[in-house]
C-alpha cells in the first residue's frame, strides 16, 4: 500500500555488515536518517516570528540521522551512555517520540504515515515494549498486568486470561498471577514486564535498559532467560543498554551510539577486535573479553598430527622437532582417535609395535568451535597436548596452547585478528 518498494533497493547501507547479505530474512525494522531535534524551552514564541531561520539552527539534536536495519528474529543491541540518544531512538521506533525527520518502516509499513488508529493497532499487535523501571500497573494483579495488551485490544476475558497465563508460564511465573507486582522482587517484576509483551504475540520487542535496575546476579539470570526465550519464540528484539558486557552477551549486532550518532555497527567480536574509534576502544578495554571472544580467534593449526597406521619411530622422530609430550592421532577424516604420548611411543618401539593406533590414550580434552574463551579456561593446560578444537563432526581443526590463551586475555585488543 505504501511506497515501500522504492526503499528496499537502498537497504544495504555502508553501516550494515556483510551478514545482512548472507541471511535472506525479511527486514523488520528499516530506519533511514531518523532525527529528533528538541526545541529549547521557551523558544516556541520566537519561532512564530522567525520560523524559517530558527528551525534549522536551534534546538538540541537528540538523535542525528541514524540509519539501520533489523532483520526478523534478530537480537539487535543499541549501546551508549546516558545522553547518547539511544532511548529516544528506541521510542521513535513505536513513535512514543515522533521523529523530526527521516523515514521508518516496520514490517514493511511506513510508520510515519500512520494515523492515530493505525498507530495504536501497530503498537498493540506488532511492536511491544519492556521498560527500565518495569512500568507495571500497581492496581492490577500480575495476571491482569500480563493481559493488559490483550485487554486494550478488546479480547474477551476468558481468552485474555488464558493467553496471559501462558505468557506468565513462559517466563516462569505461572503461579504468581494473583499477586500484586509490588509484592514481587525486581527480577520477577521484569519477568511480568516481559510476559506483558509476550502475551500480545507482537513480533517486535523494544527493550529499554530492561535489566539495568536489577542487581548483577539477577541481571545475568534475566539475560539467560531472554536468550533462551529467543531460542523458543524468535522475536525481533531491539535492546537498549549502557552495559557493553550485556551488549556483547546478547547482541548479534551492536550499534554503538554517542551524541545521537552511530559510531559503529558490528558484531561484538568485530567491535572488540576493530573498534571504530578511540571512544569505542575505551569502552572495549573494560570488557571481559573471555566472554566475547570465541576459540577460533585463539586457536592455531596443530604443529603435528599423526595417522593411526604410522610407525611409532617415525612419529617420535617428528615429535623431536617440536616441544610437547604428545601428538593427536587422527583418522583419514581428521577425527581424533586419541593422543600418543612420547612415553607410550617409546614403549611401543621397545615392544616392536608397527602401528601407533594401539598405543593411543584418551589423555586430552576437546572443545567445539564457537565456544567462548571463558569455557576454555578451566580446560587448558591439563594434559600433555594442547586443548583440541573440533568442528561439529568431531574433526580436529586447531589447538589452543595455554600461552596463546593467556596472550589473548592479556592483550588489549590490538592483535586479535592478526
Amino acid at each position: 500500500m505504501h511506497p515501500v518498494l522504492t526503499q528496499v533497493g537502498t537497504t544495504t547501507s555502508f553501516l550494515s555488515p556483510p551478514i545482512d547479505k548472507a541471511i535472506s530474512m525479511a527486514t523488520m525494522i528499516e530506519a533511514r536518517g531518523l532525527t529528533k531535534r528538541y526545541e529549547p524551552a521557551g523558544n516556541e514564541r520566537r519561532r512564530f516570528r522567525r520560523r524559517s531561520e530558527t528551525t534549522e539552527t536551534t534546538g538540541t539534536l537528540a538523535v542525528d540521522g541514524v540509519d539501520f536495519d533489523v532483520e526478523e528474529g534478530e537480537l539487535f543491541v543499541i549501546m551508549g551512555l546516558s545522553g547518547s540518544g539511544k532511548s529516544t531512538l528506541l521510542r521513535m521506533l513505536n513513535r512514543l517520540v515522533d521523529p523530526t525527520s527521516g523515514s521508518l518502516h516496520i514490517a514493511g509499513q511506513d510508520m510515519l504515515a500512520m494515523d492515530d488508529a493505525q498507530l495504536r493497532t501497530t503498537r498493540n499487535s506488532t511492536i511491544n515494549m519492556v521498560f527500565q523501571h518495569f512500568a507495571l500497573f500497581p492496581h492490577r494483579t500480575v495476571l491482569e498486568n500480563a493481559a493488559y495488551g490483550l485487554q486494550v485490544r478488546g479480547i474477551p476475558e476468558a481468552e485474555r486470561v488464558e493467553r496471559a497465563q501462558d505468557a506468565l508460564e513462559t517466563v516462569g511465573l505461572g503461579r504468581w498471577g494473583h499477586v500484586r507486582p509490588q509484592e514481587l522482587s525486581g527480577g520477577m517484576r521484569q519477568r511480568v514486564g516481559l510476559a506483558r509483551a509476550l502475551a500480545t504475540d507482537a513480533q517486535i520487542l523494544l527493550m529499554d535498559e530492561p535489566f539495568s535496575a536489577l542487581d548483577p546476579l539477577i541481571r545475568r539470570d534475566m539475560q539467560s532467560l531472554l536468550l533462551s526465550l529467543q531460542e523458543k519464540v524468535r522475536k525481533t528484539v531491539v535492546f537498549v543498554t549502557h552495559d557493553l558486557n550485556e551488549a556483547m552477551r546478547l547482541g548479534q549486532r551492536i550499534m554503538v551510539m554517542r551524541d545521537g550518532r552511530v559510531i559503529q555497527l558490528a558484531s561484538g567480536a568485530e567491535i572488540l577486535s576493530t573498534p571504530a574509534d578511540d571512544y569505542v576502544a575505551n569502552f572495549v578495554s573494560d570488557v571481559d573479553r573471555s566472554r566475547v571472544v570465541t576459540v577460533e580467534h585463539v586457536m592455531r593449526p596443530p604443529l603435528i598430527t599423526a595417522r593411526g597406521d604410522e610407525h611409532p619411530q617415525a612419529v617420535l622422530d617428528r615429535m623431536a622437532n617440536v616441544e610437547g609430550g604428545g601428538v593427536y592421532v587422527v583418522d583419514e577424516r581428521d577425527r581424533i582417535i586419541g593422543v600418543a604420548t612420547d612415553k607410550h611411543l617409546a614403549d611401543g618401539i621397545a615392544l616392536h609395535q608397527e602401528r601407533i593406533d594401539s598405543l593411543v590414550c584418551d589423555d586430552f580434552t576437546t572443545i567445539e568451535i564457537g565456544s567462548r574463551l571463558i569455557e576454555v579456561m578451566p580446560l587448558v593446560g591439563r594434559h600433555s597436548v594442547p586443548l583440541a578444537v573440533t568442528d561439529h563432526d568431531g574433526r580436529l581443526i586447531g589447538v589452543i596452547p595455554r600461552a596463546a590463551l593467556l596472550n589473548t586475555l592479556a592483550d588489549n585488543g590490538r592483535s586479535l585478528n592478526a
Partner: protein
Amino acid sequence: MPNLHIGDAVSAIVTWLQENVAGVFDAIAAITQWLLDVVLVALTGPPPLVIVVIAALLALWARGIGFAVFTVLGLLVVESMQLWTETMETLAIVLVASVIAVVIGIPTGIWAARSKRASVVVRPVLDFMQTLPVFVYLIPAVFLFGIGVVPAVVATFIFAIPPGVRLTELGLRQVDPEMVEASVAFGATPWQLLRQVQLPLAVPSIMAGLNQVIMMALSMVVIAGMVGAGGLGAVVVQGISRLDIAVGFEGGLAVVFLAIFLDRLTSAFPRPRRRAVAVADEAPEAVAVQAVPRVA
C-alpha cells in the same frame, strides 16, 4: 487614575441575568430543590434509629469498631439534644452540594490535567471561588435563586468545588510517566489510558479531594443558615442573635460531630483495599514473599 466601576458592572450583570434568563435559574433551583427533598426524605423518613444503624454499619465497614461506637454515641447525643431534623437537613445540604461539586469538579480536573490551556484558565477561576469572601457571592445567589436553601447550596457548591478540581488534576498529573508510556506503548486509546491507568492511580488523590470538598461544604453551614437554609446553621444563627449560649453550643456540637463523622468516613477510602483474588485456585504458599507495604 480612571475611576473603574467594576462593582456597578457586576451588579448590572446580575440584574440582567435576573431579568432575562430567570428561567435557567428557576430550573437550576427546581432541580436542586428536588435533589434536596429526595435526600431529606431519605434521611428523615425512617426513624432515627434506622439511620443510626446504617451510619454505624458504614463506620464499621470504613474504619472498624471504634469509629462505629463513636458514630452511634454521637448520633444518639444529637437525637437527645432534639436536633435530629436540623442535623439531617444540614447533612442533606452538604451531600447535595458535594455531589454536584464532584460531578462537575472531577471532569473539570481531568480536563485541566489533559490540557495545559485548560489548566491555565481553570486555576485563576478556582482561586477566585476559593478566596472571594462567601457573602460576596451569597448575595447575588439570593437575588438569582431567591431566599431559602437553594442559594445556600449554590454558594456551598462554589466554595467547595476547588479542592475537588485541584486534587483531581494533581492526582492525574502525578501518575508515573512510565506508566502512561507503557499504556500508550501497548496501543491504548486516550480513553483507555484514562480509564484503565490514570484514574485508578489517581484515586487516592481524588478521594482526598472528595474529603476536602465535604469539609469545605460543612464549613459553610452556619453561613447557609443566614439565608434561610435551615438546618444546624439556623440553630447556630438563632443562638447568636438571641445570645443564647445553650442553643448556640448545642448546634455547634452537632456540626462538630457531623464534621468528624464525614471526615473519618471519607478519609478511610484513599487506602487501597485488596481486590478479590484473580486466580483463586493458586497455591497459597505463592504469597510467601513478604508483602511490601503498599505505597498509597
